[in-house]
Structure formats: structure tokens, C-alpha cells
């Protein structure tokens, strides 16, 4: 289990972005972290993987503080600008002992990506696919995805959403931030609503549908239109 305890973060003298956020991610579940822009969703993910130092709080992954079991898929292109997709796969293979070449090859074929294509010259949708590939091809039990659907067309969203129902999800605990949950709503196991740096609501989606009689999308509207 990935446990997040009391995360706090303030940038400069502004109000705190995170004010004691705690939750946990179980294996084999897809958890969606929902919040308006600037509520600190990405900050939480970056804090968990150590890309942004937190002011307070701790991250426990299966009983240890090591973050080697977490893979992170950011919402930006992270490979040097000169690299082709093939270069990026070689790069990952060189640095990561848990890089799974077979998964990478399968996803390349599924997403119809060419290893000779330069990543920076790809469309936003294909860059998002490359990012997902680089995350999913790491054999890690926890995967954090930052806005995987941001700024891409409906067809590409559906292609990407396919991965969440595929065997690549098996056994993995996934935490995803997104505003666009329509395409994946039926796959989400748990939702966490974030506001003013705190968790204001947290539910299993089934339980939420039973208690509130609403879909995640409708519940989201209700929470943020208060």
C-alpha cells in the first residue's frame, strides 16, 4: 500500500497549497484525485515521487520510505529534445533495471508509434502516449499519472483510456489526476476530492453511487459548485 501522511506545502508567502493531505492507494485499484485548477493535485503527485520537496508529511510505500516502487507519468514531455522514441526506450532500458522491454514493444505496437519519430515533433496526443508507455513499461506496483488526458482529442483519449482496462493495470495501484473523467469513469475504483489544500470528500465509486445516487462526474459538479 502507498500511504500519504499529512502532506503540507506552501510556495513562498502564499496560502498553503497542501494543508495536511493524507490518503492511501491500494494495489489493483484506480484512484482519481479530483480538484479545480491550482488545488494542488499535481503538487501531491510531485511530492510523492520527490520532484517537489514537501514542508511536512511522509510517504510510506509497502512499509518503507523508498520510492523505487513508484513510476510517474507527468503531463509534460521529459526526454531531451533531440531524442527519437527509439532513443527514449534505449535511455530507459539503460537506466532502469525494472524496465520491461516486452511491455514497451507491445505498447509501441498498440499505440502505433514509430521508433524513428522524434518525440518533440509528435502531436500532443502521441506525446501523451509516449509518456504513458514510459510509465507503464516500468515494472512498478504504483503508478502516478498527472493529467493524462489534458489537451488531446476524443479519439486519442479513448485510445489512452483503453490502457486502464488492459492487463497492464493488473496488480497496480494507480493514482491519477484529471478533470476529464468521462472516458474512464466506469474504471475508477476510488475518488478523492481536493479543495483548499485539503481532502473534502473520499469514496469508493460504488459506495458513492449508492450513497449519493450520482456518477463521479455529477458528484464532482456538486462538490465544486457549492
Amino acid at each position, binding site marked *: 500500500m502507498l500511504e500519504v501522511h499529512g502532506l503540507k506545502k506552501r510556495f*513562498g508567502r502564499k496560502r498553503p497549497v497542501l494543508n495536511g493531505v493524507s490518503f492511501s492507494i491500494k494495489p489493483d485499484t484506480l484512484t482519481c484525485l479530483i480538484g479545480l485548477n491550482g488545488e494542488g493535485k499535481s503538487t501531491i503527485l510531485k511530492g510523492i515521487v520527490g520532484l517537489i520537496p514537501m514542508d511536512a508529511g511522509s510517504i510510506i510505500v509497502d512499509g518503507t520510505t523508498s520510492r523505487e516502487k513508484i513510476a510517474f507519468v507527468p503531463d509534460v514531455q521529459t526526454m531531451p*529534445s533531440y531524442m527519437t522514441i527509439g532513443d527514449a526506450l534505449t535511455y530507459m532500458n539503460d537506466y532502469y533495471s525494472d524496465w520491461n522491454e516486452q511491455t514497451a514493444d507491445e505498447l509501441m505496437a498498440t499505440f502505433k508509434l514509430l521508433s524513428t519519430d522524434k518525440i518533440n515533433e509528435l502531436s500532443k496526443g502521441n506525446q501523451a502516449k509516449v509518456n504513458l508507455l514510459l510509465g507503464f513499461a516500468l515494472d512498478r506496483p504504483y503508478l502516478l499519472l498527472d493529467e493524462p488526458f489534458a489537451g488531446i482529442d476524443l479519439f486519442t483519449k479513448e485510445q489512452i483510456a483503453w490502457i486502464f482496462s488492459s492487463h497492464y493495470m493488473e496488480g497496480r495501484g494507480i493514482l491519477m489526476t484529471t478533470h476529464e473523467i468521462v472516458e474512464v469513469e466506469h474504471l475508477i475504483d476510488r475518488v478523492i476530492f481536493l479543495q483548499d489544500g485539503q481532502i473534502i470528500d473520499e469514496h469508493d465509486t460504488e459506495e458513492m453511487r449508492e450513497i449519493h445516487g450520482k456518477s463521479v462526474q455529477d458528484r464532482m459538479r456538486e462538490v465544486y459548485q457549492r
Partner: protein
Amino acid sequence: MKKYLMLTNEEIKRSSKLYLIVVGALIVLELLSVVVKTMLYERSIETFMRMNQASELEAVNSYGTFSFAAATSIFDYIMMIGVAYIVVLALQIWYREWIGESKHIYRLLLLPGSRASIYFAKLTTVLLATVSLIGLQWLTVVASYGLFDWLLPESHKFPTGLIKSGSLLQVFYSMNIEDVFILLMMSCAVINLLFFIVLIERTFRKSRAMIQLIAEAMILILPFGLVMYITEGPLSGLLLRVEYVTLYLVLLSIGFFYIGFRSIRLVQNKLSV
């Protein structure tokens, strides 16, 4: 170690294109300047002979011989461009990770193993660029001398060594191993300092970065000021010159290691996307 070597290889690959263009342009510029200056001198001699109906010997006697130092007089300025390029490289090698379409800093900070490798890989790359720039410039001076020798008749030459005394080149092309070592140490210290400033700027927000920079500058300057005050004041004349030099060298070394230590700590614990 493997991570450090791979990152260094990656940094060299990413920097080599621009490096080769800049250094190549500098070398071509230097060789061209020698050719142009030598030919201009030769044309002046010919013009003198034609205008004054003078013999070659009379023209050379009247106009003066031409030295290699005169042929390479703009090398100092070209070398300054090389030094400026190294400074730009030391800044660019960090900033390119954040700025541009690709945010490679995410990937770098997430790589398995110690983050100190990132710092050392970048430091090694800039140091290698510095050393090879000096080496290539040294070869260019030798090649320029060959060119000068080939273009100019013996009787037109003013006999001097390769490097004019007092020239900037003298600092860069010393054949004394101690001077080379000191030059490399100084280069390393300057690059280290530039890295430290960049890392503070990237780690802290605007006003906090300024405060941090001032505080770090105070920490670095205060011991020098204190030692200077004591040795020039109450203990004036107590130490031998060699002891003064040793004292300042020790202080410089401590400052150098402090900056390195702080930079690595920033990369490991504070640096963010």
C-alpha cells in the same frame, strides 16, 4: 558510477554540436586572422616598394619586420569569446533542463540512484569542454605559427617566441605543469560557483533566492575578510609571504569544497521541477 558515466556521455552528446560549431568558428577565425594580417603586411611592403621605388630590403628596414605576436594580436579577444562560451555553457547545461519544449529535469530527478551524479556529470562536461578548448587553442597557435612561417619570407619576420609576453594566451598556454594545474583548479572553481548560483536560483523563489545568495556570499567572503584583517592588522608582518599564500590557498580550497558540498546538497534534497 555507471549512472555518472552514462549521464556524462549524455551531456557530452547534447553539448557537442554547439561546442564544435563555436570552437570550429573560433579556430577558423584565428587562422584567417593570421592569414589576413600577414597578407596585409606583405601588401604594405609591396606598396612601399612600388611607391618609393625601393628594394625589398629597404622596404623591410623602413616598414619594420612582422612578428608572430602581431599576426596573432586578436587571439586574446577570440579567446575571450571562448571563455564567454564556457560561461554560457555552464549556465545553459542546467537551464536547458527546465526551459524549452522538453522538461528533462523531471526525468533526471526521477532516475534511480544518487542525484549527485547529475551534478558531477554536468561539472565533468563543462570541465572537459574547458580543457579541450585550451588544448585546441594551443594546437591552433602551433598551426598558426606554421601558417605564418609559410606565408612570410624569413627576412620579413621578427624573431619572437610563439606567445607574446603579457598576452592573455600566456596564461592559457603555459608549459609549466603547476600553472596548468592552477588554471584547471581556477576553471573548476569558477564553474562550481556558476553552478551554485544557478542551483540557488532554481531551488528558491525569487526573493528567497536573493537572500540565500547574499547569505552564501557572506559565508564565503567573511573568513577572507577576517583573515585579511588579522594578518594585515594585529599580526601584520608575523607571517612569511609563502605562509600568506598557503593560508589563502587553504581558505580558497575550503570555499571551493563548501560550494561543491552545498550544490550537491541542493541537488539531492531541494532541487525541484
